[in-house]
């Protein structure tokens, strides 16, 4: 294709870049308004005076407990992410490399469950967890999410592409499958691990439905549940839109930082593991 940068292309790119950046700019502007201005003048991007104290006010004056919710978000997000990767790597390796009886039918069942989203299963899951007394526990937010068929599928597809020679040499030398997995396969599995890490981490950090249904105690809420409450509560009682915006800024910093660090490797791993299928 053509190699020079045509002016039209650059103009189109620039306009799109402005459009895509605008919500972030508006968010920052909103976080620095007074609560009154944020509510009554939503057309303004930024108001005359900047109120950086909003960020502190989120911690002290909000009706919600940001430090606890941040802690809950971190605990559940990291636990689900690492748990999913471990479970999926083990299963993916066996599905790719160990010829055990009944492997292929079992894999097909796993594949079929890929099509069933959580949004269709929350009623039975809620009833199960309520019966076990798991509502308002970390277990409810973590354990049901650990078995992810998509992650298993990704790891399997990756392990299939690893050359067999090294593994066979190790097996002939008397190493067990667990040793092969631990010292050969796991160190190689960077690409699927990065992909699953980013996708699961973001999904768990950003999730609302599960976190909202499985917790009723404010001390068990995650950041998204708290923000949603501030959004709803703010509209009917005392409007604190600027605080809400400041809270969104704070809650968005961890995923954005994580994303900036890993996006390059994510793009590479998409190309390598064929996330596209």
């Amino acid at each position, binding site marked *: 294709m*053509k190699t020079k940068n045509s002016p039209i292309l650059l103009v*189109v*790119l620039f306009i*799109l*870049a402005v459009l*895509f950046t605008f*919500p972030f700019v*508006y968010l920052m502007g909103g976080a620095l308004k007074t609560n009154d201005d*944020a509510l009554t*003048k*939503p057309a303004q991007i930024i108001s005359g005076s900047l109120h950086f104290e909003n960020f502190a006010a989120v911690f002290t004056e909000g009706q919600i407990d940001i430090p606890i919710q941040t802690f809950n978000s971190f605990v559940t997000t990291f636990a689900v992410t690492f748990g999913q990767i*471990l*479970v*999926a790597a083990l*299963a993916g*390796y*066996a599905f790719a490399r*160990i010829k*055990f*009886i009944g*492997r292929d039918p*079992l894999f097909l069942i*796993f594949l079929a*469950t890929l*099509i*069933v989203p*959580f*949004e*269709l*299963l*929350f*009623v*039975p899951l809620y009833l*199960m967890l309520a019966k076990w007394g798991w509502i308002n526990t970390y277990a409810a937010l973590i*354990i049901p999410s*650990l*078995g992810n*068929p998509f992650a298993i599928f990704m790891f399997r597809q990756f392990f299939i592409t690893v050359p067999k020679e090294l593994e066979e040499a190790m097996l002939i030398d008397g190493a067990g*499958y*667990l040793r092969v997995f631990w010292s050969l396969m796991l160190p190689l599995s960077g690409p699927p691990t990065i992909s699953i890490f980013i996708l699961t981490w973001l999904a768990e950090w*950003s*999730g*609302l*439905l599960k976190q909202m249904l499985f917790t009723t105690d404010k001390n068990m809420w995650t950041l*998204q549940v708290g923000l949603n409450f501030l*959004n709803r509560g703010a509209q009917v009682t005392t409007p604190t*839109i600027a605080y809400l*915006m400041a809270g*969104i800024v704070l809650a*968005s910093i961890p*995923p*954005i930082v994580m*994303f900036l660090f890993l*996006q390059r490797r994510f*793009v590479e791993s*998409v*190309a390598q593991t064929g*996330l*596209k*299928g």
Partner: protein
Amino acid sequence: MLTAKRLNKFRVTVTGYSFVLPAIILVSIFLLYPIGFVLYISFHEWGILGKPEFVGFDNYVRIFKDKNFWTALGNTAYYLILAVPSQIGIGLLLAFLVNKKNLFARGVFRTIFFIPMSVSFVAAGIIFSWILTATPMSGFLPNLINNLGLQFPLWQTTDPGWAMVMIVLMNTWKSAGYCMVIYLAGLQSINNDYYEAAQIDGVKNDWQMFRFITWPLLAPTTFLLIVSTTIFTVRGFEPIFVMTQGGPAGATTTLVYYIFKKFPNLMGVSSAAAIFLLLAIIMLTAVQYWGNRHSEKYY
């Protein structure tokens, strides 16, 4: 010898299952069993405080007679028709724009288009609600449009048909970058020889290159994006919950939102709708694969 072989096979099978065991347990308890449980609940009348009472197909009859259910089905289709092509189309456009090797500030542009993906739907929904709010105060965009002498639709009140468009705007902003990244991977896997051969064969401009080389070669990528974004869009709960709560006047109540609203008082009805939606998703995916059956993998 034969017994040794059989013993080995046995040992391999035990090893295999021990690797898969955690996954089997988790998927069985938290995915397979709940699927059966939804089916069970769908045949019962069950409020959160009461006991389940078997009612046969009553819940199904009930949703099929419910006008709101059919509206929700229509809204889901409307949401799909708006959201899937817009994120894939804009994703493709973005991929094209940032694919050129010597592009000025290429990495910065990529990051700008990709990074909205890291913002949660709660955050994105709230930001867009305030940018787009038309009543009682005008937000940034309505203000701009109204100043141009046009009338921005009152999507929260009297123009319910526009509410879905606003949700789709937010969704596209958040999701187009993902489609861009997938398309970039697809573009990079296209062998340059095709373009050179096409040039020799007399393909002149960029549009023809796109029409006759790039687009057909990207077909597998496009297909997989259609399948995956369809499922992702159908299951969308947060965008609607945060921006409109299914309103105004039920105009953005999709099937997933309908299922959510029937919980916890009418769990049987909710579950019947969930089973219906599950079958619909399976059929939709099957139709998509069927429609794609003749296409070939080129690379």
